[in-house]
């Protein structure tokens, strides 16, 4: 019988570890500053079609019209209605931290009171049987001295 030699398959192990810094810009930046400053969530409106955006946007993607400026931004939430949700039960590597996702991890799409806008954020409740589309939720903010002008200034949304 002919002797068959199997060459070992060679793979190169690598880890890309690259720090990034993303400029939030004028509109998202002000949205985040307001989370820290006032503990309020803001949206803005297109003067032409009346569509709202949260976080506020500079231009309406549909009308190509300038959205309403800072002085006309409207306060939305902190209460809202759950439009959809998921609960992660399997963990994945979180690329922005390099850590594994702590599961169960639940996220909701929340229609905030005051304007037709939806925000994705973490839900306090992680049992899918206790989360219902249509349920009322409310944003829980960190104490003011701990807020850092990032989205984590809202801890999560809790059922009300």
């Amino acid at each position, binding site marked *: 019988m002919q002797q068959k030699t199997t060459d070992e398959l060679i793979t190169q192990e690598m880890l890309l570890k690259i720090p990034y810094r993303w400029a939030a810009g004028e509109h998202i930046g002000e949205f985040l500053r307001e989370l820290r400053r006032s503990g309020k969530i803001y949206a803005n409106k297109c003067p032409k079609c009346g569509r709202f955006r949260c976080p506020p946007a500079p231009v309406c993607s549909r009308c190509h019209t300038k959205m309403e400026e800072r002085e006309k931004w409207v306060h939305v939430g902190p209460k809202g209605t759950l439009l959809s949700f998921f609960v992660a039960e399997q963990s994945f590597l979180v690329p922005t931290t390099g850590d594994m996702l702590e599961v169960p991890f639940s996220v909701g799409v929340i*229609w905030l009171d005051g304007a037709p806008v939806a925000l994705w954020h973490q839900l306090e409740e992680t049992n899918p049987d206790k989360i219902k589309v249509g349920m009322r939720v409310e944003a829980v903010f960190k104490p003011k001295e701990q807020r850092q002008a990032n989205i984590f200034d809202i801890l999560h949304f809790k059922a009300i």
Partner: protein
Amino acid sequence: MPQRVAIVGIGQTRHTSRRPDVNDGELINEAVSAALADAQLTMKDIEAVIIGNMEFFEGHHLNDAMLIDYTGARGKAGLKMNTGGTVGTMEVISGCYHVASGLFDTCLVIGWEKHDEASTTSCITTITDPAVDRPYAVGALSGLAIISMNYMTRTGCKVEHAAMVRAQASENASRNPNAHVRDRLSVEDVLKGRMVLYPLNLYFLCPTSVGACALVLASETKAKKISRKPVWIRDHITVHSDYSGALFTFPGETRETSHMVAGRKIFQRNHITKPIREIQVFELYDPCAFLQMSWLEDFGICDQGEAWKLVEKGVTAREGEFPVCPSGGVLCTNAIGDSGTLRVAEAALQIRGDAGEHQVTRDVKAALASGYGGSYWTDLLLLSKTPD
């Protein structure tokens, strides 16, 4: 007037979860060689090369330079695509523009991905808004789960219907030797799957695959000269969405997604009034079982809230009146940069009658292929057996 464009060569690798035996270039070359052989052409006949994948999945950026030995692109024209789930369909559309413009008579299109080289979900998480959404995204899975939950709420579709879609996809994939996940699953098997992201268990989600697909496109004059069975790219459309894809409709708004616009426009301008009767196959980009149903509705194949009923009646099965993804679809094979190219390839094989064991039972005169991705845009292509 633009030149008509035909697909004259189709090649794909087998799809699997790991290919440590080849590097990316060697993988691509398998598909390129197969497509050239199918077209009975050599690299000398090819005037432009379009290639694409999503570079973050392999962590190897601007890889087209290093891949030149395997693509044959040296000294030729062409472009590189990097548009998420639409990479593969964007490439075909780009190839079409190259040929339709009259500047090129032949164009090679290559879509590929090697998902065994990194964490797919972690990479996809980086497509979201870094400041506001990213902490709440779990790759593509989170969007798929949110849409699925919304689809059930809006239409009354049940988890069992998604299980029927997946069971049907598995039946189709079991007949396709190039598909990745080929186990035959019953509805009960699917429902017992391990929960990944509630409401989605493992079987409701596409796998991460390794594979490549290549197509040779040719102008009408060239195609008629060299090909016995050219498949014509009758029309194609790309439609962009708002960021997040206009998932939800608030009071006073009309629900309008990029799929809806794409379907409406392509059917209108091709005088197709009843797509479900006038088109015989749809290779729909279906990364999740619920989305196959939701997107059939959005493309205008049936009314809103009707797709799960079609699934129940077996209309979308391989032997049904309107087969959807007879190849097994993205649900069973998903090498992202190749998934879109593969949709077009599989739709073209159905028109040629060359799909083998997974050939649909009816004669296919017209077929659709779609792509969708994290860049929130839709690609839709209409293929036909005859040029007009």
